[in-house]
């Protein structure tokens, strides 16, 4: 196996939405009036920053020397043997500083915030990984940081709450609604509407009003840029499929991006099937949702007949969200990407099997992508090549999995 020499690079400015922030029929800017000027100013600042060689050089410097990029592409031979003999490669975002892909976006946006003169970062978090990444970026760049987190998520991701506080962030519990990620986003937007003059909203997924879905995907595009070069070097060809879990969809957009123009590469997003595909018990938007407008964007979401957003469930806090990023809705509508789901049971089984087969404990979010590999590997057979985005590590989940399994490992 040759080890390619890769400098982390981004795909900036080649696949922009239209001027109003639409990917096909999805996206846009459905925000309260007070935030319109803020998202317009943010768009201008972002477009200027991504063209600026100094901004890009500083981002690359941080990604190499602070985050530890490029991350390896590991051929998981034992997982492949157990998956119909296909060659399975894991993109090891779990090995980044702070342990998940979220840091790629948090550092990019925090640099932008600093460039725009903001003193304070506002962030929301589900599993806590984006909150930890934001708190980390704030500490590094000398910014204040307030993180909103649903109280249900605070209970199941207590380790990350402690990490955020250790990093100097203020964590504010949100107990409205379902006390999960969507409620944390509502509260973050309420904060931003009042503090827009000096605060920067550091949204963690490819969601929300334009330019966030574009900007978050582009800051995460480093994953796909590296993975595409690595798979060409290591397998000698493009993969048959790229697989990633989809909550809001940032890790998936980050790795899909480099392969969108490779027509022969299947792009497969895996949503959270929860306990069952019935209202309130899952978070598989393409399996049980409909088009709508939510938290600033037109996309697919889980809602009732009256247009109220329904409760969701997933064992994974990071996938437990009622809407999906608008670019995913577009890729689904054009047929360029396909979306499957894995339920809680399958994700927990994959969590355990990856630990046993490869010595890697994945985040429960990433375990949903791993769960899809067995069936896909059998479908593709021994000649198949699969790249899986292992978006984060599972240390944060060990306690809650132990609770779920009664301590049996």
């Amino acid at each position, binding site marked *: 196996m040759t080890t390619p020499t890769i400098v982390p690079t981004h795909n900036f400015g080649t696949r922009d939405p239209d001027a109003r922030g639409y990917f096909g029929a999805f996206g846009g800017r459905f925000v309260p*009036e007070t935030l319109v*000027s*803020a998202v317009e100013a943010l768009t201008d600042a972002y477009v200027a920053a991504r063209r600026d060689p100094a901004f890009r050089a500083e981002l690359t410097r941080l990604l190499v020397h602070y985050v530890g990029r490029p991350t390896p592409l590991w051929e998981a031979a034992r997982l492949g043997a157990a998956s119909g003999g296909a060659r399975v490669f894991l993109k090891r975002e779990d090995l980044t500083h702070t342990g998940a892909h979220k840091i790629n976006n948090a550092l990019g946006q925090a640099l932008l915030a600093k460039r725009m003169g903001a003193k304070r970062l506002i962030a929301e978090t589900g599993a806590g990984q984006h909150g930890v990444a934001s708190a980390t970026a704030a500490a590094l760049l000398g910014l204040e940081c307030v993180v909103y987190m649903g109280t249900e998520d605070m209970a199941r991701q207590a380790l990350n709450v402690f990490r955020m506080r250790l990093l100097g962030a203020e964590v504010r519990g949100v107990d409205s609604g379902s006390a999960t990620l969507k409620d944390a986003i*509502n509260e973050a937007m309420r904060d931003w509407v009042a503090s827009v003059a000096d605060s920067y909203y550091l949204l963690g997924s490819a969601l929300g009003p334009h330019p966030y879905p574009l900007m978050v995907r582009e800051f995460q595009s480093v994953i796909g840029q590296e993975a595409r070069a690595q798979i060409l070097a290591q397998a000698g060809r493009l993969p048959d499929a790229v697989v990633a879990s989809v909550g809001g969809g940032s890790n998936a957009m980050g790795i899909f991006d480099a392969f969108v123009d490779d027509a022969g590469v299947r792009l497969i997003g895996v949503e959270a099937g929860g306990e069952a595909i019935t209202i309130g018990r899952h978070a598989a938007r393409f399996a049980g949702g409909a088009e*709508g407008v939510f*938290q*600033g964007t037109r996309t697919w979401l889980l809602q009732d007949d009256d*247009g*109220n*957003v329904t409760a969701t469930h997933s064992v994974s806090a990071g996938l437990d969200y009622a809407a999906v990023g608008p670019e995913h809705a577009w890729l689904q509508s054009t047929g360029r990407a396909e979306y499957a789901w894995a339920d809680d049971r399958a994700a927990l089984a994959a969590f355990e099997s990856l630990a046993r087969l490869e010595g890697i404990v994945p985040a429960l979010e990433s375990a949903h992508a791993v769960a899809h590999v067995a069936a896909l590997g059998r479908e593709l057979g021994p000649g198949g090549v699969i790249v899986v985005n292992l978006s984060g590590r599972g240390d944060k989940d060990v306690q809650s999995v132990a609770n779920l399994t009664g301590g049996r490992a």
Partner: protein
Amino acid sequence: MSRLDDTFARLRAEHRTGLVAYVTAGDPDLARSAEVIRAVDRGGADVIELGVPFSDPLADGPVIQRATERALAAGTTLAKVLELAAGLRADVAAPLVLFTYANPMVRMGIPAFARRAREAGIDGVLVLDLPPEEAGEARTAFVGEGLDTIFLLSPTTSVERIRRAAELGGGFLYGISRLGVTGARADVADSAESLAARVRAETTRPLALGFGFSRPEHLRAVGQWADAAVVGSALVQVVADHAGNPDLGGEVERYVRWLRS
């Protein structure tokens, strides 16, 4: 001339500051909400805004969030708010404006929503998360049904966008007098006067200022710069405080009268 146009023309002719009263429709339940709305009308509100409860009211502060939760728990939906309005239209004098988030309307289908709103006797629609740039389809449907499209303006709104909202909107412009979510405050923000001055420089369209007002002296202050003041959270709090009171309507009516004193 729409009913809203008539109302604001009369306010200007009488040199009187209007009161736009917001209530969350279906709070505490649909039957008592009807009683509240009648009381608001009897108390002398010039325009009544009916808030459509939505699961994720991200522009609202705690008081309206709680009202929304009560209304949803009591089974309120957009369709039921329209039925409520239709049942009240004959004996409520004030124009009725629906105040909603986009998704319930999108779910119903924008043309169907516009038609049903007109049939229910609604005069105007304000969609909180539908700025003019996203409002094209809705505005066309509203105009087609004779409904006024109410746009919001904020201290952060540019002059170009004030002009566009004045041009595309109908009825009145709703000026958000301070940054932040809905909720009563002790005083009138300095940003209220400067926003009103910026709007006045661009358009003669009637202007109602809102966010934070709860007292008669707030209305008098707003009257120096704008056509009307919006009272929302403070009125919703009166409803919450007296939800179990057999004289809920009387309490609401007295509060609205006091605001106009």
